[in-house]
């Protein structure tokens, strides 16, 4: 084999190897998606709370401490519902089971399905707000003009960091697009 042919073969081998690197980097980009979710779950980054109910644990109420829990309710653009919290805030003791209500009203003449997405701030408190029951666990379908009172039961974990004296639980209602059915998490 001539020198040129040897070199051209070596070039092609290295180029293919680098192409493999490109493919790996592309895959890594998609791998970052589940990785990001895991990191958010572990750290409570972005105020993500668990999407499912926690089991009722032993509840020892820490009456020496009072925490303010504030509520925010919002509807996203394209969601023609009226959505409000029954009360702007409640004072709770860590470990105590609290139930509050949110009211939602379909203001249109058609049946609409919505999904509420919760967020807790500050982020480091997110994993300490444990929901026993929540309307955000599943999609809500409202008939035209229907009004619904929806409960949320939660416990503020007693391991809540000492420097957190107030936390905010916010819900955003999104219209569930029939075409965009799939849910990722």
């Amino acid at each position, binding site marked *: 084999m001539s020198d040129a042919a040897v070199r051209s073969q070596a070039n092609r081998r290295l180029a293919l190897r*680098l192409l493999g690197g490109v493919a790996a*980097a592309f895959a890594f980009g998609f791998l970052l998606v589940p990785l990001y*979710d895991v990191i958010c779950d572990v750290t409570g980054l972005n105020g993500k709370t668990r999407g499912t109910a926690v089991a009722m644990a032993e509840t020892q109420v820490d009456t020496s401490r009072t925490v303010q829990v504030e509520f925010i309710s919002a509807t*996203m653009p394209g969601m023609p519902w009226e959505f409000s919290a029954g009360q702007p805030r409640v004072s709770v003791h860590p470990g105590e089971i609290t139930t509050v209500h949110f009211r939602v009203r379909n203001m249109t003449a058609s049946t609409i399905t919505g*999904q509420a997405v919760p967020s807790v701030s500050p982020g480091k408190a997110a994993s300490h707000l444990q929901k026993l029951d929540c309307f955000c666990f599943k999609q809500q379908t409202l008939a035209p003009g229907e009004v619904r009172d929806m409960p949320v039961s939660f416990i503020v974990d007693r391991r809540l960091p000492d420097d957190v004296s107030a936390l905010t639980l916010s819900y955003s209602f999104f219209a569930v697009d029939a075409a*965009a059915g*799939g849910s990722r998490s």
Partner: protein
Amino acid sequence: MSTGSAAAHDHAHHDHDAHHGPSGLARWLFTTNHKDIGTMYLMFSMIMFLIGGSLILSVRAELFQPGIQIIQPELFNQLIGLHALVMIFAALMPAATGFANWMLPLQIGAPDMALPRLNNWGFWLLPPAGTILLMPLVLYFFGIGTGGADAGWTLYPPLSTQSGWGIDFAILALHLMGISSVMGSINVVVTILNMRAPGMTMMKLPMFAWGWLMTAFLLIATIPVLAGAITMLLTDRHFGTHFFSAAGGGDPILFQHLFWFFGHPEVYILLLPIWGFIPHILETFARKPMYGYKAQVWSLVCIAALSVIVWAHHFFTAGMPVQALLYFMYSTMSISLPLAVLFFCWIATIWRGSMTFETPMLFALGFIILFGIGGLTGLVLADVAADAQYHHSYFVVAHFHYTLFAGGIMGVMAGVYYWLPKMTGHMYNEKLGKAHFWLTAISFNLTFMPQFFVGLAGMPRRIPDYALQFTEFNMISTIGAFALGLSQLIFVYNVVTTWRGKGEKASDGVWEGTKGLEWQLSSPPPHHSWDPQPVIK
């Protein structure tokens, strides 16, 4: 590919200088010659530089006075984002690739790039990509469609998931430009690793090759991540996925992580080739050997490695645990250490040298000072506490123009003036070159220095209107921007006339203090050079 190099080999047996093959347009369409392709890259870059500049001059015209005068906010939003995309992907990156094509084979004693056909492909993806990127904006002026990409160059959702066609066009264009630069990078890596002249060890490589090698590795590692992110954006927009939609369990912040995982290394992708050839210019005009070659090489490697682990400093204010903030702050600041080594070596290279101040040297010295300001203001932004105030203000705009215009564009211009006589065989007009430098340096500062002040005072970026107290500084900035834009016409004139053969003949060495293999060839170099390869002792 093998046939490509075989064909090149056959050529070598004929007359060295004679150019066989098609002429006219077909020559440029089908060329696999690294010098032809390098020329096309550089020309494409210059055209897109002028287009990107015009886009932003209309923005500056609107910002001359508060209130909305000539540009409606919808158009304003398109212009700022397209300006950035054009300048980064269609002007700066192709300029660097153009230099790589022209100079790497000459500098390392290779007959051509390793993969000539891939090289041709890499270039010819760019003109369609540029067209696709800008077409929606042009159609918009004729009342067709919803306009160009209007979510800024960062394309953050949910803005970009709600926006019109322009985003889809931008995504397609970015894919093409990404494929093009990945091809170019593969070619550069293979060329540098496999095609060096006998005896040229890695530690004898020209600094430019080291800079480009790091850039190429970064491109290979990060462009695919961007491709993934914008693909997810596309499927979110049209195919019902929820990667970035909170309603479906996704997270818009995720896009920021993916984008900046590419976006931060991108900054270094643009600058590493320039940090590569600036030392060559300095050693030439200081008539002294480059100071600290090894230190510079390892600094480039360090910077490339650090650049992929600091991305989140672009969105400190999006919400992060304190530990993450601290990590990204300290890692970002640590980049200033290898960069300080580079600055030290550059200054030590010219220290007590017998300097002369031809245009390339002026640009290189201007680069050191102005890029230094860009780097130092970057340290301010890296401070989490300070960033809370400066984030998304004009301070950021001023900062990255000091790095990317003074560091990027002026660096490229230093390279153009340095190598233009070698590439064309003719000297450019030195008087015009010097005038170009001084006009550029002064009007650049006139444009961007006031933006530091309005940014500190709280003027937000990307907004077509502003509070009255910012008026004077914005007027100065606009006047500076137009002076800056018009000064570039001198550059275009100078380059074009030199290319067309005006100006005295350049000698082989061109400059007095040149070292390096490219200066041993004639000016302009023969169509096929370094065949057989030189032997380095």
